Every structure is written in structure tokens, then in C-alpha cells.
């Protein structure tokens, strides 16, 4: 019985993130539009786009290989699994223990790996450029992410996300410098990984500036739909990650009742909305930076993460 219940919870979770992802993207776009005095498309526009993409035919470059066609499914699967392992509204996920935070990062890494390969498959200079910039940014973002993970793990004494979240929810956690550093680093990484301004601009196709869009330039139809969906999923993943670690309020416990779960869901929705709005505000207030300024930006995150870890190492008190 309990198993079935947990399975259900897990399933709901997986579906939930999947359903919410385009919505969040839509929300961000809408807010940005409003902030720039535009009317903007509806929040539901991303859903429409997806369904249209699914109905469109796929235009495949002549020398695209099987890898190019398999990649979207792999990317989507990896991202989805990763997203499913992050507690959204309840901690005690059935399979939460099957992969800890490090593994989640690695899953995202595999997704990126195949995306970059796909970008190089067709053999246009665009794809290559996108891939090379993507991996360059990732080569700094991933270690930064791991450093924040270290900090959290040292604070919570675990790399298990559920455990960390539970710990953060508990009164045991006080304010600490390294937590702040970790949060800061995590946000920077999130921005970089999700190709948001100032690192990358998701809504441009100007080759000089684009990174993510350049890789997926050759994709179309259902493949593109999967790619778009997985990048949306990634955004949700990061938001819920930050939420469950740094704003674990209202997170339902392991064996919580229906009421608590309901609270959890609503809290989660609130967090998502807030995050979306904040992101939109942030993106409208600053400008995209040159590609070769990005390393310094993300490198700062790495340094912050390292500093946080170091502080934890040198003495548990910070």
C-alpha cells in the first residue's frame, strides 16, 4: 500500500514538473514583455508552440546521423529523470535516494554532452560554435555547482537532496556565511546553465551572441519540441532545487497527509511564480555580456563555491 502511495507520489511529481515547465517559461516571457511595456504572448504560448512543433514535419540536414535523431530523446530522458529526483512539494521521494545531488548534476551533464554532440553532428559552423561555447561555460559552471554541493553536503552532512532539504527545513540550520556564498554561486550557475541573460539570450538568433540556440539550430519538428521541453524542464529543476534548499518552507515530509501535501503543492507553485517573476525582472534590468566575459562571471561562482567549501572545511562554524 505504502509502496503504491509512494509510487503515485513519485509519478505525480514527474508529471507535475513536466506539466509546469512550459508554464514557467511562458510566465517569464510574459512578465518580461509586461516589464518592457509590451503586451506579450499569453502564458500558455509555450504549450501551443510545443503542440505545433509536434505536428510539424522534421526537416533533417542531409548528413545528420543517427546520433542527431537519438540525441533529443536521450537529452529529454536525462533531464526529466534529473528533474524527477528533485523534491518539489514533498521530500520523501521513493527513488530520491537512487541518485544524490552529484548524480543529478552528472545527469544534466550527460544531457549537455549529447546536446553538444548533436550540435556538431550536422557539420555547420553554427553547431560547432554553439557546442564549443557551451562546453566552455559548462567547464566552469559544473565545478561551481559541485562546490556548492560540497558546501551543502558539509552543512547537512549528506549529499542526499531529501536529507539536505529536511535539514534545511529543521531549526538546526542557522544563518551561515558559506550558505550565502553557496546560494549566490548556485544562482549564477542556474543562470548560466539555463542560458539566460546575461550569459546567453534565449530569444535571439544572432550568431555572435547565441550559445544554446546555435546548437539546436538544425533541430525542427518533434525533435525541437523535445529539446525545448527539456530546457524548460531544466529551468524548473533549478528553480525547485534552489527552492527546496534555500526556501524549504511548506515542503511536505516523508509520510505527510493529504492536507500537508496540498500545502506543499501550493507553496511550490508560489515559489515557482516568484522565481519566474524575479528572473524576468533580473533579465530585463541587465544586458547580455560578451562571450569572453562569461568565464569571469561563472568563474566568480566557482570561486565563491570554493570559498564556501573551504570555510566549512576549516571550521564547521561559518
Amino acid at each position, binding site marked *: 500500500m505504502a509502496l503504491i502511495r509512494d509510487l503515485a507520489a513519485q509519478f505525480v511529481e514527474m508529471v507535475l514538473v513536466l506539466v509546469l515547465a512550459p508554464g514557467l517559461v511562458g510566465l517569464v516571457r510574459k512578465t518580461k514583455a509586461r516589464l518592457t511595456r509590451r503586451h506579450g504572448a499569453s502564458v500558455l504560448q509555450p504549450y501551443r508552440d510545443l503542440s505545433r512543433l509536434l505536428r510539424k514535419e522534421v526537416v533533417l540536414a542531409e548528413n545528420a546521423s543517427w546520433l542527431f535523431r537519438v540525441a533529443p530523446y536521450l537529452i529529454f530522458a536525462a533531464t*526529466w*529523470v534529473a528533474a524527477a529526483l528533485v523534491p518539489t512539494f514533498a521530500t520523501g521521494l521513493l527513488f530520491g535516494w537512487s541518485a544524490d545531488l552529484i548524480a543529478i548534476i552528472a545527469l544534466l551533464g550527460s544531457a549537455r554532452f549529447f546536446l553538444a554532440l548533436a550540435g556538431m553532428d550536422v*557539420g555547420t559552423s553554427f553547431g*560547432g560554435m554553439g557546442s*564549443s*561555447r557551451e562546453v566552455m561555460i559548462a*567547464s566552469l559552471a559544473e565545478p561551481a555547482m*559541485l*562546490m556548492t554541493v*560540497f558546501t551543502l553536503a558539509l552543512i547537512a552532512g549528506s549529499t542526499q537532496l531529501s536529507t539536505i532539504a529536511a535539514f534545511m527545513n529543521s531549526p538546526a540550520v542557522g544563518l551561515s556565511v558559506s550558505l550565502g556564498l553557496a546560494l549566490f554561486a548556485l544562482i549564477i550557475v542556474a543562470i548560466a546553465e539555463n542560458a539566460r541573460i546575461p550569459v546567453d539570450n534565449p530569444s535571439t538568433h544572432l550568431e555572435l551572441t547565441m550559445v544554446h540556440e546555435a546548437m539546436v539550430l538544425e533541430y525542427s519538428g518533434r525533435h525541437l519540441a523535445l529539446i525545448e521541453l527539456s530546457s524548460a524542464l531544466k529551468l524548473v529543476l533549478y528553480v525547485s532545487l534552489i527552492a527546496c534548499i534555500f526556501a524549504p518552507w511548506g515542503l511536505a515530509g516523508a509520510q505527510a497527509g493529504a492536507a500537508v501535501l496540498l500545502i506543499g503543492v501550493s507553496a511550490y507553485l508560489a515559489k515557482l511564480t516568484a522565481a519566474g517573476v524575479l528572473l524576468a525582472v533580473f533579465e530585463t534590468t541587465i544586458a547580455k555580456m560578451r562571450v569572453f566575459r562569461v568565464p569571469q562571471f561563472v568563474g566568480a561562482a566557482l570561486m565563491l563555491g570554493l570559498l564556501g567549501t573551504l570555510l566549512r572545511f576549516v571550521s564547521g562554524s561559518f
Partner: protein
Amino acid sequence: MSLIVLLACVAALLMTSVLGITAARTRVGTPIVYGACLAACTIALVAALAQLLSNAAVPTLVLPLALPWLGAHFRIDALSAFFLVVVDLGGGGASLYALGHGTHEEAPHRVLPFYPAFLAGMNLVVVADDAFTFLLCWEFMSLTSWALVMAHHRDADNRRAGYIYMVMAGFGTFALMLAFGLLAGPSGGYAFEVMRAGQHGPLIAALVLTLALLGAGSKAGLVPLHVWLPLAHPAAPSHVSALMSGAMTKVAVYAFLRIVLDLLGAPSWWSSMAVLALAGITTVMGVLYALMQHDLKRLLAYHTVENIGIVFIGVGLALGFKANAMPLAAALALTAALFHVFNHSLFKSLLFFGAGSVQNATGERDMEHLGGLIHRMPYAAFAFLVGCAAISALPPLNGFVSEWLTFQAILLSPAVAQWGLKMLIPGVGALLALSAALAAACFVKAYGVTFLGRPRTPVAAQAIETDRFSLTAMFILAALCLLAGILPGFFIDALAPVSEALIGARMPVQATDPWLGIVPIAASRSSYDGLLVFVFIGLAGLITATAIHRLASHALRRSPAWDCGTPDPSPLTQYSAASFAQPIRRVYGTLAFDAREQVEMPPPGDPRPAVLRVSLRDLLWDWLYAPAEGAVRVTADRLNQFQFLTIRKYLSLVFGLLIVLLLVLAIWL
């Protein structure tokens, strides 16, 4: 029993190499020799596995060879057994691969006699149980591999590679010789059990550790002793490169573990400082060097350097924990290191096999001349992709598991007492994380430029799929990579006896875990389940695929790629290896290689092409090796004058010496 079997296999290998001298010129030579090697390695592998899994009594044997009053001691304990598995797995794979690959060899008479001897040497090093036998086999291993490196000796670069390799090998051997000399003491107790029994003071311990780092490190390729490795490994035939990277470097790791963790007794914390610092630098420098390469095999060789760094991080942590009396943590770190040794031997062999197949198919090692091979040789491409994913530490493959374990070990280290370690270990962790990300970048480049995109040269366009033997070998290794990734528990349990022997503790039993996951310390702390992750990804992929299949349109149209309206006929407009690495070069290169780029942009209307020049300097070479080389040259020149003196001057030398000695006598006596 297992020892007898093993030595029999070694003898068989040696005989095979004698046979190889005669059989080399005949057509049947290649299959006979490699077949024999395959058989011998398989038997040895089985024996070693039996010894490792059934923790039977440790077999020892003394043959009346080598040092007359000592004899040649042989012994297979858990550590030896594990490394035997690594060596013979690699050897078997390489032999199987060579059954196909070797037929393309243009100079078989320079490979067949030495290849089996090389295998024999590696096996013997691991089972040798006294200093002399150990070094004898060690240097024999170097010598045979040197001969294999010199197989294609008409190429001047290969000769240079062989030369540098030989000098570095000699350096390493002498370092180990000195280390053993210290351990044995003036009375010359060269048997390992005598050394184990002996008590060694702190100074001795420090010296031995340094010498072991120099000796084993130079063979394993620790920065800055790595210089020979990226030269020598690519120079050899590909199956030998695979062995050198996959197995021989591991033998060096074995030597280090044997000396430092077994013979030297209790380690001191600063020893782990030294190891960790070197290892961290090695890890990042290795992968950065790799990123700058466009020779496929050299890139792989540099990655060997990186992975050796990862292994040594584990070893260093184990030393630190052991010194701090944290047996569980030490066991975890050591297991992580050993598991990575195993994994690396798998995927590095696989990758070198792939590179060899590419070389056979196109005659090219330079990635800038390749591309689009995934169309021409799909199977090899697939296997190579698995290898790339594994070495880039992507779940659910094996590379990730061992790095994950290393991270877990690092996360246990705040408990150590010494501030030095407290400060160092996070840095090393950061370096490890950095190198993991960079490795992924590097293999995106390697795979993308070699196998994806459009062929850059006709040879790449005319490439043909490699032969069955090679493919079999590659797919076996790929399967093992996946297996070790999704069922790591069993492998970790198999490593328990080793950590039992060296640390005196072991990781918790993993095989009993309900979902076959792994739990290094406690479930609440951290856990990972490769199997589930694999299943999830599979399911998710499947669900998506079916869903798409149901909902979406199946319409599909082939059309030229989007070119912004400016059609580019030439595949040379693709991103090349150099251009792919450019952003990373600009980020890290200036620091690590003092990289310089000049662009010559002709003025508008000038038909000349724009030129971009990139200059990289190997700073380590310039700072360490060039000066030494120069010193030798200058000294040689100075002393050379003594060849051209007149007889009278020579006489005055004699006279002077005589007077000096008489004066000494007159004054002091």
C-alpha cells in the same frame, strides 16, 4: 595453485615471444602469436579472479633464479590479484583486438616478438615479491614496451619518443632502486616480507615516499614526470598503446601502493599532502594538455595522465585517512582509487582501440583530417561513443561511479586533524570537479570532430568499417563499462579484500543492497543506484518515444543544412579541433601554456586569406627538462676538450695527480 597457473601463463607468453621472432615473417605469425596471447591472458585472468574472489590462502613461491642467495620470490595477495585482473583483462582485450588490427601492421617482425614479452613483464611485476625480481621485471616491462614504441622507427618523432621514454624509464627505475635500497638497509634484506617487518624512521619514510613518487610516478605519468607518456603511447601500435595506457600505468600505481601502503608501514599525514598536491595538478594539467591536442591518440594519452591524477587523489586521501586513523574513510578512498584503476583500464583500452580502428580505416591520427566517420564506420563509432561517455564520467556508466566515490571520500575529509590537509583537500576537490567538466568538453571535441560532421579529407570519406575481431573486443569492453556502471556494488565488494589487506578495513557490503545500489557510508549520507538511474532513463526515453510516436507527425524531410543563405561547399568551414578548443584555450591556455594568438587580417579588397597563428608553450618542459638537457650538453662540451690534449698535457695530469696524492699523504699522515 593460482600462482603456478599464472607463472605457467607467463612462461607460455615468453615462449610465444620467442616463437614470434621466427613466425613474424610468415602470414600465420600474427594470428598464432595473438591467439596464444589471448589464451594465456584469459587463463591468467581466470586464475587471478579465482584468487581475488575466493579469499584463499596467499600463495607464495621461490624459484632459484635472480639473486643467488635470495632467489626469485613470487606471491599473489589481494592487491596483486586485483592488478593481475586489470593487466590480463587489458591484455586479453588487446590481444583479441590485435587479431584483427595486427593484420594491418606493416612491420610485424618488430611487434610480434616483443608484445608477448611485454605482457609477461607486466604480469611478473605484479606478482614479484622481492625487490630485485620486482625491478628486474619492471625494467623488462619498460624495455619491451620501448621496443614496441620503436616498432615504427623510421619516423623521427617515434625515435625521439622512444629515447625520452627510455631515459625517463631509467630515471624511474633508479629512483625505485634507491627506495628499495633504503627499505632493505645496508645488509640488503631485499625480500618484501623483510622490508614489511623492518621499522623505518621518519626521514627514511620521507625519502622512500619521495623516491616512490618519482619512480612510480614517472611510469604512471604524474605531472611533471609525464613528458614521455604522450610521446610514447601514441608512437606504439594501437593495441600496444591501449596496453601501455590501460595496463602499464596501472602497474605503476601498483608499485606505488605496494611500496607506500604495504612495505613502508603506517603513513604520515604530510605524505598524503605531497601525493594530493601532485595528483590535483596532474588531473587538471593532463586534461588541459589533452584539450590542446589534435592528434587523437596523443589526446587519449594525455587523458591517461588526467585519470592517473584521479587515481592518485584517491590514493592520497587513503593515505591521509589512514594517518588520521579513519579506517572506513581510508577504505572508501582506496576503493574509489582502485575502482577507477579498473574503469580507466576498460574505457581507455576501448578508446585506443577505436583510435586504432580509425587509423586503420583512414591512415590518419590527426583529427583535423577526419570527420563524419559515424556514417562510414557506425559500429566502431558507437563503441567509441560509449567509451567517451564513460571517460567523461556520465551516469550510468562506470567512470561516474568511481569519481562519485572519490567525491564522497573528499566529503569525509573535514574530520582530518591537520590544517594542511583541511586547506588542501577542498582545492583538490575543486580541481577534480574542474577536470571532470573539462574531460567532458574534451571528448565532445574528440568525438565531434572525428566521427561527426562532414569528412574533411577524401580518406575520411572513403573510410571503411573495422574488422570483426576489433569490433568484438571493443563491444566487450563497452559492455563491461556499462556493467560496472550499473552494478558497481559487486565490483566494490570484490575490492574489499584489497582494502582489508592494505587498510585493515573495508567498505560496507554492497551486494545486499535491496535495489543493488551502493552506499559508501550510510544511506542517510549518500547513495547511488546506477541500475535504477539506467532503468529510469531507459523508461523515460521509451515513454517519450512511444508518446511522440503516437502523438507527433512522422513526416520527415532531408534537406541541406541551414547556411544563412551563404552556401559553404567546403567541409573545411566546419568547426575544427583547434577552433573548438579556442574558447577554453583563451580561458585557461594563457595561464597553463602561455598561449598566444596573432591574427593577420588583410585589408578589405586584399585577396590574401586571413591567418590565425596559435603558439603554445609546454612550460613544464621549458622549465624543467630543457635546462637539464642544456646542462648535460654544456658539461659534455666542456669536458670534451680533454679528448684533444697533447701527450705532454696528459702527462702533466698524471704528474699533478701523483703530487696531490703524495701531498695528501705527507700532510695527513
